[in-house]
């Protein structure tokens, strides 16, 4: 990073709340996303980590990569633990037992921890309106346990529990639209982000932390190990996911949708799928069918932006 001082010293903090000493795979897009997110955290932040890749790569008694207070308990309960911490801060501050200051509580989880096993705890914490930020690092399968499918795995992807075969296309269901589920909780801030767009990502984290009430950020996290890609492709694949419409960047503030990067013409899906081993079994017809649905969802998202804009104008 010899050019760091030339290009980024004035725009990005040199602070690294997540220290470089960790055990993530070479080329991991998820730990990059977590590092960028951490750079956008205020120093008055408490981190709650669900079990998963990001938990095990950052922790091992007696080491820990976090320079912030950090707690891990279980797989499915990060949002509930965060709600307990937030409540403790609230009451102790009210009772003058700790200094009165703003302390952010941020929960981190992978897609399995968030959209599958932990969705109940997350839904409960958001419904109750706790002032917490929840960040989902979505690498589209249970990578920590060995690439098993989750409800965030995209249609057609081959995983160890949705393997492609003579009678199987791989994952047979469409990726769960988790940001929409979070929007349905009527929370003030929901956003998607990708570490290939670092400034957008960090701005969204800052916005989420400064939101009064629950906020949710869903971060697309390329996993070279699980996606069967070369280890130098995380940034490029992240960009292609956005440019092909696979993972649009948008935010929803108080119910109003806004796309942060609108593609006038979406790039061909094959540019994104071809470098990935998990999609290599798909034929052209299958890819076209997937592409058609991606395009229709992209249009639907643009429509949502227009429709909800009315609410903002009111």
């Amino acid at each position, binding site marked *: 990073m010899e050019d760091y001082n030339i290009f980024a010293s004035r725009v990005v903090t040199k602070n690294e709340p997540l220290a470089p000493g960790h055990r993530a795979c070479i080329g991991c897009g998820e730990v990059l996303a977590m590092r960028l997110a951490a750079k956008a955290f205020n*120093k*008055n*932040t*408490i981190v*709650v*980590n669900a079990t998963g890749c990001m*938990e*095990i790569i950052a*922790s*091992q*008694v*007696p*080491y*820990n990569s*976090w*320079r*912030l*207070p*950090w*707690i*891990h*308990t*279980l797989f*499915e*309960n990060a*949002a*509930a*633990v*965060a*709600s*307990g*911490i*937030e*409540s*403790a*801060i*609230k*009451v*102790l501050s*009210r*009772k003058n*037992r*700790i200094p009165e200051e703003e*302390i952010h509580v941020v929960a981190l989880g992978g897609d399995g921890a968030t959209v599958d096993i932990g969705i*109940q*705890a997350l*839904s*409960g*914490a958001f*419904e*109750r309106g706790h002032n917490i930020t929840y960040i989902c690092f979505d690498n589209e399968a249970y990578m920590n346990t060995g690439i098993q499918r989750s409800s965030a795995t995209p249609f057609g992807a081959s995983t160890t529990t949705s393997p492609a075969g003579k009678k199987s296309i791989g994952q047979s269901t469409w990726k769960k639209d988790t940001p929409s589920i979070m929007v349905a909780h009527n929370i003030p801030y929901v956003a998607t982000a990708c570490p290939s767009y670092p400034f957008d990502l960090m701005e969204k984290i800052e916005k989420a932390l400064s939101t009064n009430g629950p906020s949710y950020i869903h971060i697309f996290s390329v996993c070279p190990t699980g996606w069967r890609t070369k280890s130098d492709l995380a940034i490029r694949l992240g960009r292609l996911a956005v440019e092909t419409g696979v993972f649009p960047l948008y935010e929803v503030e108080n119910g109003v949708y806004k796309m942060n990067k609108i593609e006038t013409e979406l790039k061909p899906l094959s540019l994104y799928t071809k470098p990935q081993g998990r999609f290599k079994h798909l034929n052209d017809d299958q890819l076209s069918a997937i592409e058609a649905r991606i395009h229709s969802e992209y249009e639907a998202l643009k429509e949502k932006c227009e429709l909800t804009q009315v609410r903002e104008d009111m």
Partner: protein
Amino acid sequence: MSKRIGIETSLAIAETVKLVNVDVVAAYPITPQTHIVEHIADLCANGELDAEYIPVESEHSAMSACLGSSAGGARTFTATASQGLELMHEVLYVASGMRLPIVMAVANRAVSAPLSIWGDHSDVMSCRDTGWIQVFVENGQEAVDMTICSFIIAEDPSVLLPFMINLDGFHLSHVIEPIILPDQDEVKAFVPDFNYKYRLDPHNPVAMGDFATPAIFTEAKWANEVALTNSRAVINDVWDRFYKTFGRKYQAVETYKTEDAETLLMTMGSFSETAMTAIDAMREQGRKVGLVRIRLWRPFPFDDIYEAVKECKNLIILDRALSAGGPAGPVASEVKAALYNKSVKPAIVSIVGGLGGRDIHVSDFINMVDIGEKAIKNNDIKPFEIYGVRG
């Protein structure tokens, strides 16, 4: 001044939660525990208790939120029962493993299937190895007194372990009893403030809950075990101080008319009061019988139990839980194991009864003593007897 009032045990526990000035309560409704948390919610709503009440969406999240609030340095309480306790099961181990001094009341109830809302000890018997300090209370007064003591014990810097107060669902939780509620100032003077040294604090960052490799896991578990075993000294000390301050004496194992007794009944929980009446009735008939009641279940009071039973010939142990396919009722199994290497020990008969809320009357306890003495006399001791079963 403390006052003696007629109050339901559940409400008295809630009032005690107020007296010790709990900071955070996270709870989910489940019968027969609901009256406790409903009353706490009332106290918060009326401004009588300044606490955060988190109405979580499940017991799993209840205990998880408790982990968070306790790690955040707040005095934390919850209550549950039965399926709720089972749903939070995996979180219980985390609370003890991470040394978080959460206090929980469990209104003991049967576990499905078949669905039963009524009381027995099946729920908590699956939690024996979770690393929590556990007591079984006999009456409403004891529930109040144990609640006061539990926070001091759990939060003691040398202990820092979660504390479970078991009270029989309905038979105790829903009973209105004359209870002395101590005065707020008395409790404030007796219960020190909770100052958790390792709380999550941005000014002094700590990492909690790192994973452990095989190189350190055993040491971590052993440290927990040593802390749990050593908590006994603090438990004794707090109960002694409680006696000096409030005049009510508590010890790990209680005995009733055990001197010169040839046959002893052993019980846990509220049915012990009925058993005492049965002992009185049998004593009137000239039978040499007595009662041993276990109050402290974890850490297991080996020496106290041995002291209490070593002189008797026959020991009849009532379990209100069935250890499916196991060697005896859970309490009987543990007491047998604890006495196995002693050269002098009584013959032991395990009786399982009172499941799913079925009453055990004075006459039933007399029957149990008859069954037990007969089995021992005829040298016909089964792994366990199930009491009063039809068909």
